């Protein structure tokens, strides 16, 4: 069992028998690698001469953009000399797509690493996580004041948002996947459209409907409601996808045993999709926790710790960054606090994300290792 699991999936059936050898279909050849490297180095040298010495160009980014274009050109020429046209075109597109993927990856890592690098000044002070900004002025050193009030606010607001949006979102997903009907199509399209809604619209909506119309004061509760408007469609869409993956045979087995639809959904469909649903919820939380625009208008700004979400303004981490990270608003000490809060926020998002990958990533009905063990134990004891 163990040896089978350690091998890559699909390898079990293609075990080479005696006398048969597996054909290697690797596309990485020394010639191919050297062509890429040669084109890269050649382009670097050519662009350096032209860009820095011959032509009156300046600017680092412009240099690399030129380098990339020259590199693609050189690579195309070199490929054309070695291979026929079809193969050359294939190689050039491969390189172009690979660089696209790398550029996208560089974006993620650049953003995250930059926040971590600039925020380390603030986060290595313990008081940064244990005190609020109540007694810290704009010129206070970093060992006074912190983001405790913002962390508390973020946690409370995201819990409120989750409590409001998850029951609604999962019910809507059950409606889309299990009940259906004429209403399903417009609801699905609106849910899809709402996932890419301007994030500030949720804040504007809560501001208009709850604060202006109902006279509610700016508070953590209002921020939680605004976040739930953003979170709901995300969770609903992801949950519907998960519910659709539940095998129809399980439902039919349940119906064949005479259970009603709601029993089937409650006892068969939802438990089968449990891991996926949890992933959908956690991903929705990860998305909502970083939203600044919805809370900007409705939560109010404070420097003090406010434990109550229903009365008085309540800070949150994104809002903290918004207030302190802005270049005009602040001295460098405050900017450092903003970056510290960014580190805290990024770490929270990455943690939520890791949790989502941990519990999810399996198909519905696919049991985790502990679940399998429990099942085996109960089978043995019987």
């Amino acid at each position, binding site marked *: 069992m163990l040896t089978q699991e350690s091998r890559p999936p699909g390898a079990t059936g293609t075990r080479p028998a005696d006398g048969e050898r597996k054909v290697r279909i690797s596309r990485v050849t020394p010639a191919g690698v050297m062509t890429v490297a040669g084109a890269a180095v050649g382009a670097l040298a050519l662009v350096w001469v032209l860009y820095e010495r011959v032509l009156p160009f300046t600017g680092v980014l412009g240099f690399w953009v030129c380098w990339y274009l020259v590199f693609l050109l050189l690579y195309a020429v070199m490929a054309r000399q070695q291979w026929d046209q079809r193969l050359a075109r294939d190689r050039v597109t491969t390189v172009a797509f690979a660089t696209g993927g790398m550029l*996208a990856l560089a974006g993620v890592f650049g953003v*995250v690493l930059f926040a971590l690098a600039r925020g380390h000044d603030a986060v290595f002070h313990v008081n940064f996580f244990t005190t609020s900004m109540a007694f810290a002025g704009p010129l206070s050193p970093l060992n006074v004041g912190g983001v405790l009030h913002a962390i508390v606010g973020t946690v409370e607001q995201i819990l409120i948002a989750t409590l409001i949006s998850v029951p609604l979102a999962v019910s*809507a997903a059950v409606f889309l996947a299990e009940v259906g009907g004429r209403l399903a199509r417009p609801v699905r399209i609106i849910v899809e*459209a709402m996932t890419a809604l301007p994030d500030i619209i949720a804040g504007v909506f809560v501001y208009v409907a709850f604060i202006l119309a109902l006279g509610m004061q700016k508070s953590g509760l209002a921020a939680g409601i605004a976040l739930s408007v953003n979170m*709901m469609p995300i969770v609903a869409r992801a949950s519907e996808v998960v519910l659709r993956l539940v095998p129809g045979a399980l439902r039919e087995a349940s119906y064949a045993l005479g259970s009603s639809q709601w029993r089937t959904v409650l006892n068969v469909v939802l438990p089968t999709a449990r891991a996926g649903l949890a992933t959908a919820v956690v991903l929705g939380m990860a998305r909502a926790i970083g939203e600044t*625009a919805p809370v900007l208008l409705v939560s109010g700004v404070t420097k003090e710790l406010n434990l109550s979400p229903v009365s008085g303004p309540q800070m949150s981490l994104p809002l903290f960054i918004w207030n302190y990270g802005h*270049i005009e608003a602040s001295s460098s000490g405050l900017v450092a606090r903003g970056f510290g809060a960014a580190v805290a926020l990024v770490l929270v998002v990455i943690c939520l994300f890791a949790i989502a990958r941990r519990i999810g990533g399996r198909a519905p009905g696919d049991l985790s290792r502990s679940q399998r063990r429990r099942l085996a134990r109960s089978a043995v004891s019987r």
Partner: protein
Amino acid sequence: MGLRGTAAEGEEGNPTMAALARSGPTLTPDDDKPRPIVVRVSTGDLIFRSAMRAAGLMVLVITASILIFLVARSIPAFRSAGFSFFTTSQFNGYQFGIAAILPFSVLIAVIALVIAIPVGIAAALFISEYAPPGLRRALIAAIDLMAAVPSIVVAVFGLYFLMPRILGFDSWLAQHLGFIPVFRVTGPNSAVTYVQSTFIAGVVVSLLVIPIITSLSRQVFSQAPQGEREAAYALGATRWGMIRTVVLPYGRAGMIGASMLGLGRALGETIAVSFILTPIYSFSPHVLQSGGNSVTYMIANYLLDAGSLERSALLAAAMVLFVMTLGINVVAAIVISRSRSGATTAAD
């Protein structure tokens, strides 16, 4: 048996055939009726179904109520400004209109998409077609993580990391490609001329749009039927030939839909835009020139301090933005769901 038709002999077991036969001219309907199939829905199921339907309806109700509240609040602004709301560039308590801020929003979104669509689709193709399986899972996770990175963290990255480094490129573009009207700048060739421009805002927004386009188009590409891929290979296609003839046509609607969702996201991006831009109130298409604006910028920065008429005007602008993005997103969702590739994911 009572059946006297010629067409229905031996078909008693099949209700549809029996029904067909019954409608024939030679039949008398008196002695044979198909067994009616009665689905008895229990009370519990009825309650369950209506509760779930209500939850689904709730989505429509929320969307509708956003629209209703915004329309109701923006009536004073429209009453005061009339049609000039769409032709005025200024935005203050007396004169207001979206003639400058809405084109700016669109301009920033277009810049973001010009960068994000090629990079996003190239990344999606790389992940779904080129990357080895082990790397593929890691890349998918990275792109999903990128979609979850808070926009304010990206905004901070844009303001403190990207903007100082992009100025040289700006100046380079303006000096050597300045004959193209879009890249023209007026003013000395120094940082003051180039900072806080719509181009930089567009680049930062593109960082937020790339993961959306990448993950949506990757999902579509990975659904391209295996049989057709193998057929293309069997006919002697290279990998690029296979992608061009199988994957891209299969995923075309998905790519269009993903780009439109990205457009909606770019139009509505608030935080990154607010961090980068410095507000100006006359539209200029010179993207490298310092200064810009957007609907979301105005709302985020001025709504709370606005007087009642200006607030109404800002909410009217929000309403226009909401209707626009909702329209774009709905069309995108329909394009995706109508397509061949979308049919498998969202079929009833």
